């Protein structure tokens, strides 16, 4: 899952960046309004975390710009201002959620998961495909009820595929959802992780669609 983080404060930005990466989110960190506008126009994000007070303008302008382009990416506002009028202004400008600083990292992560579910039109916090169940909050994967230990990247790839099990994902699409701007990717990294997943979950769990990409196997594992 790829997140655009818009935050000008270096310490909060760094903390969020580290915290999100520890949870295996791919993070692109924009520090100004202009960087944020450029990033949101040129990349596809699953969620945007948006600070309001930016050095070259308001985060609300980024949000309005996004909605003006008919972009429905879920947006969560992070700000020091907690008055109702400011919350209403943020939500009316098109934000999906609002969190006041200082906030708890776990609460932010829970809200990100909820936003992700809502944007996918689901209420269930876990993903199920056949006998395979993935729980994003606890980072656990169960096959036939048995807890299977996966590496962070394996977990992240499986999550991408299980979110939309009917869809075929290209290697580039999977890479985009796993790696931020400053992360180096080995050319065969995705293949290695898919191999790892098949070894742990069964070789038929993920289907390779030749010259296109990968998808979850139909119906059963």
């Amino acid at each position, binding site marked *: 899952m790829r997140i655009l983080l818009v935050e000008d404060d270096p*310490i909060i930005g760094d*903390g969020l960046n580290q915290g999100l990466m520890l949870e295996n989110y791919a993070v692109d960190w924009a520090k100004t309004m202009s960087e944020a506008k450029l990033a949101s126009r040129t990349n596809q994000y699953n969620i945007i975390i948006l600070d309001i007070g930016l*050095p070259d303008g308001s985060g609300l302008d980024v949000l309005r710009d996004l909605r003006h382009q008919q972009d429905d990416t879920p947006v969560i506002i992070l700000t*020091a201002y907690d008055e109702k009028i400011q919350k209403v202004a943020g939500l009316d400008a098109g934000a999906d959620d609002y969190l006041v*600083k*200082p906030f708890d*990292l776990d609460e932010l992560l829970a809200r990100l998961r909820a936003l992700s579910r809502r944007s996918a039109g689901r209420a269930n916090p876990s993903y199920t495909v056949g006998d395979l169940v993935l729980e994003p909050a606890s980072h656990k994967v169960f096959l036939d009820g048995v807890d299977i230990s996966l590496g962070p990247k394996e977990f992240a790839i499986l999550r991408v595929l299980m979110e939309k099990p009917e869809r075929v994902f290209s290697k580039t699409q999977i890479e985009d959802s796993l790696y931020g701007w400053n992360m180096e990717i080995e050319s065969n990294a995705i293949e290695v992780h898919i191999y790892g997943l098949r070894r742990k979950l069964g070789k038929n769990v993920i289907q390779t669609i030749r010259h296109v990409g990968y998808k979850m196997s139909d119906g059963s594992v």
Partner: protein
Amino acid sequence: MAALTTVTIALMVFLYKSAPAKIKKAVEHFNKEVALVDRGMLQGLDANKYPSVLQDQVKIINDHFKSEQERIEQEMLFSSEASHELRTPLAGIKLQTQIAQRTQDSAQRDKALANIMTSIDRSTQLVQSLLLYSRLSPHRLKQELEEINVILLIESILKSLHKKAKVREIDLVLEQHNTAILPMRLHAEYIETLLKETIDKCLENKLSIGQLIVKVERADDALKIDIVNDTMRQYQEEKTIAQEILNGSSRLNDEICRRILLLHGATQTFLLGETGEFKKATITLPNTY
């Protein structure tokens, strides 16, 4: 406040000495209105309810109520801004503590701990600013005025900013015109804060490498301090701008500077050059007696 009390007593005495029934009613009304203003339920006295001979006094009282109301609103806004500014380093501390608790990587943990220290320093600075703000009063200014050598003070400020300037390849230069700059009667802490904030803001807004020149000269009984961006010297001045829109602005510190300027009867301007870059800041500092 003393002037207001005198006017109020005069008003009451006048009312009581006039026709009893009508005036007693007016006095009662006056008391009621003052109580309502006191409770914040009324902005001021209703001038239509008082005799024409007292209209000037009613206006003085209403003007006082208005300026008092504005002062209270300003204080409330300041407290609100200060609390919001404190939330940012507090959020940094909380977040970085959670990172330090979660990570298995010792380098990441060390970085998080260093960030926590930075955030604590920033919070401490904000608390210091709040304390300073609470101490900004005309009474204290009068009590603590002292002879200050402004040149020595600027030298020490430039020294404290040297490291920050060096990172950005900017030289801080002091130019002293009319050699004999006499000591000024000022409040040392207030003036140091004002000058440091202003020079620091100029440094933040100098975009190119080169020199930031602090020029000090005596103009009659005042001191004129120009902080000039040398790379903008050849450009014309374009416009005066409010300090709030410059980089490195904090509403808390801006308000502190505004209050210090007011207390000293000093002025401060920031000028942009025609290219839109910061060109010059000027502080005019009169001797305080």
